[in-house]
């Protein structure tokens, strides 16, 4: 791993440690907002760990940042909507209360967006064909070895 990327990955782990401690405090203080918003940042850190070769680069930050911001917006709007009462208002959206409609449709869509982001940023791995062949042979060869014992 490049030195710069390695240092960045160390910093990410310190951020994760900080967020974990914050969540611990949130749980002990019964603050759901501290737990929830820390969790969303942990999601962002997890995505960044998927790009350590490219860190610190624009693409990883863009992918992780957009996922965290979209989830953050979803929960912030939900928080505002349900501030007064759990069902938000007396209106209906697609037959559901507005917060229910937002959550039921919004959360899965964001999961799908995150999955699509993984696919479109995916780069295929090149593995030494000789290494791969050796590994396959090892799996295939074990039987004859095992049976002869």
């Amino acid at each position, binding site marked *: *791993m490049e030195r710069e990327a*390695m240092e960045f*990955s*160390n910093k990410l*782990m310190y951020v994760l*440690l900080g967020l*974990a401690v914050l*969540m611990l405090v*949130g*749980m*002990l203080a*019964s*603050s*759901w*907002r501290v*737990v*929830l918003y820390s*969790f969303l940042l*942990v*999601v962002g850190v*997890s*995505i960044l*760990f998927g*790009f350590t*070769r490219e860190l610190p680069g624009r693409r990883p930050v863009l992918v992780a940042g957009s996922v965290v911001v979209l989830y953050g917006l979803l929960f912030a709007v*939900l928080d505002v909507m349900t501030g007064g*009462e*759990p*069902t938000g208002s007396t209106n*209906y959206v*697609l*037959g*559901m*209360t507005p*917060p*229910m409609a937002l*959550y*039921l449709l919004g*959360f*899965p869509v*964001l*999961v*799908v967006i*995150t*999955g699509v982001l*993984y696919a479109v940023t*995916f780069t*295929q*791995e090149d*593995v030494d064909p000789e290494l791969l062949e050796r*590994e*396959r042979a*090892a*799996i*295939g060869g*074990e*039987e004859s070895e*095992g*049976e002869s*014992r």
Partner: protein
Amino acid sequence: MSTTIAGVVAAYLLATIAIGVWATRKTKNAGDFFVAGRNLGMLVVALAVFTSIQSGFGVLGGTGLTFESGLGGFVAAIGFAAPLGFVLAWFLVAKRMWRIANLGEVYTLGDVVEHRYGSPGVRGWVGVAVALGVIGYLGVQVQATGFIMSAIFDIEFRTAAVIGLVILGIYAIGGGTIAAVYTDLFQGIILVGVSAAVVFIAINAGGGVQNITENLQSSDPALASPFGTVPTLTIACYLFLFGIGAAGQPQLLTKFLMIRDSKELRWGALVSAVAYLLTMLLVAGVGLTALSLNVQGEFPALDSPDQALTRFFVDFTPPLLAGLGLAAILAAIMSTGDAFLNLGAASLIRDIPRSLNFRIRNELLWSRLVVAVLLVVSLLFSFYLDTLVALLGVFGWGTFAAALFPAVVLGLVWPRATKHGAIWSIIASLVANFVLEIGGLYDFAPLPEGVVNGAFALVVAIVVFIAVSLVTQPAEDETSPEVRKAMES
């Protein structure tokens, strides 16, 4: 139940046996038994990930919890966080696990951590954590199998559980992971198909979405809200435990060792997540409809909320679809059961003995024997040691998440992680889960109300892992260059 329902379920069971026989012929060595010869494509792996995570608890229990507490009972937190967790697992470790699998004879999580840390001790602790979880999970799956089979075929619970386990044994003992993943594929298709079809029937039976919402509001306004009657702190904890903890589930992680080519990883996360989300339509649709009908007095009183889904299938869907629906429930239970049988065998035959510097010869033969023993032991436990099954049942998702996420997942993404950090985080997670879950059964509840024990254990394990790793840094890097290269992403 009607002969049509019993006939459809019987046909499903015969099909799984046929797949098992085919897989047994293909299983020729330990590599086939544990990692399907490292020859699987995207669709098989993606659906195997989804079905091995989507258990009887997710389908039966999830609908029951929704019936009891609204959307927050299961779908809003666990049901939505788990598929997000699939995607995060792919981001975090999919390529890394696949690359480590190329280093040679890497069949189990124990093999992975021994490569990573060069420590048999970490392998042993991972093996212990997996073995504890496996026994708990299997006991619960046996009980669920007996419960469903006895209802379908109108036979006594124990007879039903034995028949279910014999069928599971036929394909799991002979076919190992090949049987597991291909029956998972078949079972996943049934689950997704039934889910997509039944949600429309459910909404129709409830008189439309708005009618369902109005009925729920008339009973309790909170039931028409996204989190139902569940405290928001609990929702936040579950989002964390299932969103992050998914990457620590061994039945998911080991699938990355089975992929034939890295290009197969690209769309797997999305396919798994979408398949799981589709089953959440079933859980949410039937759970809320049944609750709405119950408010109106049009849904029968139940001995347990877990009966909501089976009752709905029998009373509100045509017999053919009801049969497929019940087959789908059995599919969810059996696909989780077979994954854990293989994990248990890997742990007991490979990881724990090797951590003690003892190699078992002919792992294929012994793994098959251990799968048979695990089936019999879990059956006996569920018949005669109900309390023990309940106690071990707590070693489920939360234990795997807290024990394996730091040691395996964070260990693979962070070059400075140490074996001491891994071992102490596993110990901390097991102690935290044991004390909190078993203490809870005896009125010992030190955490604030609403905090989920597993989420607390996971966060403690993460802190312990990072902190201990930082204070136990070796004088020089002990990771081999090959492993270091595999850890890059």
